[in-house]
């Protein structure tokens, strides 16, 4: 058993070292970026709709990054998320600790949805894994504070994300597949996974375009899965 374990660790190290050798442009501090995107989306509850996204990545120093994400959904839903990300650069890859607050104003349903999340992640050239926990608070905006009306709190939800890339991050294009129950603008229930295919191409030193597709099935863990929704996102990123 011990030998098998050592073999797995050894193979992992070989793969990681190969990835690290390919990444000749790795720096401890990532560059500040600003991104804009539009999304076409469909789900069974809201029908067809579009979203507009604006996102910014602001590395504070070599140990802390800040992400700010905003999305306006044409179905009258607005989302803002802030991620503070302490990180440690390792010989192979990077360990990060995401602390996130995501606020969703679901105006069409007169509700707010606030998520606070903590997670630990590790990423290197070919993969990124993240696991943690989040708490959800939901309330109606029209809540009568002098009645039995109550807010909803789901204190412990698992969050997870696994993304695998086909090329090292230093390459000028890359494609990744992800399996997760959250993304920049939503936190789904533990048993409500999202499947994503993400692609990017660096036009030059500053400009990057990306094209992402996400599929959300429902009832997977009812063992009776059905298509629920999908999103296609196209956008650009400017790297300072």
């Amino acid at each position, binding site marked *: *058993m*011990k030998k098998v374990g050592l073999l797995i660790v050894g193979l992992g190290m070989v793969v990681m070292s190969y990835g690290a050798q390919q990444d000749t442009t790795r720096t401890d501090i990532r560059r500040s970026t600003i991104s804009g995107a539009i999304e076409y989306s469909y*789900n*069974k*509850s*809201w*029908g067809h709709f579009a979203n507009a996204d604006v996102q910014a990545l602001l590395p504070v120093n070599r140990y802390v990054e800040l992400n700010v994400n905003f999305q306006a959904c044409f179905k009258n839903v607005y989302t803002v998320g802030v991620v503070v990300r302490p990180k440690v650069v390792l010989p192979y890859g990077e360990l990060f600790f995401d602390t996130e607050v995501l606020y969703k104003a*679901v105006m*069409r*349903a*007169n*509700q707010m*949805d606030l998520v606070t999340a903590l997670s630990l992640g590790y990423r290197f050239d070919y993969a990124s894994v993240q696991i943690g926990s989040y708490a*959800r608070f*939901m309330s*109606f905006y029209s*809540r009568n504070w002098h*009645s*039995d*009306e*109550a*807010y*909803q*709190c*789901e*204190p*412990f*939800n698992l969050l997870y994300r696994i993304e695998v890339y086909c090329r090292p991050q230093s390459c000028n294009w890359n494609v990744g597949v992800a399996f997760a129950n959250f993304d920049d603008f*939503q*936190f*789904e*229930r*533990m*048993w*409500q996974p999202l499947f994503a295919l993400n692609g990017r191409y660096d036009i030059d030193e500053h400009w990057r375009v990306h094209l992402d597709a996400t599929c*959300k*099935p*429902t*009832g*997977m*863990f*009812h*063992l*009776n*899965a*059905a298509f*629920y*929704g999908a999103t296609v996102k196209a956008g650009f990123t400017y790297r300072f």
Partner: protein
Amino acid sequence: MKNIKYQLSIINLLLLLAITACNPNYDMPGMFNGSSERADKRLAESLDYDKKVGEIHLTVPEDYTVYVCTDTHVDSTTHNWEKFVKLYKADGACPFALHLGDLINAKGNFGRFFNAAKVAPAGYVSGKDTIFYVVGNHDLYFNQWPEYKSFVGTSTYWFDTRTADGTLLDLYICLDSGEGTLGVDGLKWLSDILQEKAEKKYRHIIVFTHTHMFKQDDSQGHTSNYSMEETYEIASLLTKYGVAEYWSGHDHSREITTYGKVKYIVVDALEDPVEEAFFMKVRMGKNIEHEFVDIKD
């Protein structure tokens, strides 16, 4: 010693995974593509059936009791389910009972389920055989919808209760959430029926289905529910149209929460041979009172 324990725990985990994957009671391909008809098709077939049966108005006293059970998961035994039906039939204050889904555990058990309780399988109202059923995910996977339909007829319907002089009392709406969504048409049907019935000034409106909306304790520990978008929409509709309570099962453990103006109740499982199996006794009057009864008592 420590190594042996570690190895044993790894072996146990692998065995558990292997048993789960090979368990004939689980429709594993259904995890990626459900085998039954989709929600919208089931809704259309259910509404056709409802049309044939006609509207259901139950005559009841102003104060009455409803027995509610869920997740009997009938497989080789039917003890708890039989006892539940016996108790319901013996209670003179209880004009009807509800089963919130997962009648059976897996394929081939509907016959056993209905034979054991000696209740009429199809047609809603039949004296003390008046039990309303909800389709659960276990009743659907392995392409069981045709069989479920042959026994129960419908998965989406409504009925109401009235006094002998015709005064409207309570409205009950049954939803099909067996695949974790009501579907496009199911959500629209719920919206339409609530809008139409809200004008009639019912005393209480109850929505009952299989899938729970929220889970506060050990959130979603082992059961899946609706996507967030659908959760917002259903919660909004229920609050907007004055639904009093939403009764569900699926999670197997009890939970009573309030969100907005609506009370959300997850009823305990009644399956054999669970140590703590409960059903819910609801006293419908001016107020709604709940009691959870241990089936062993």
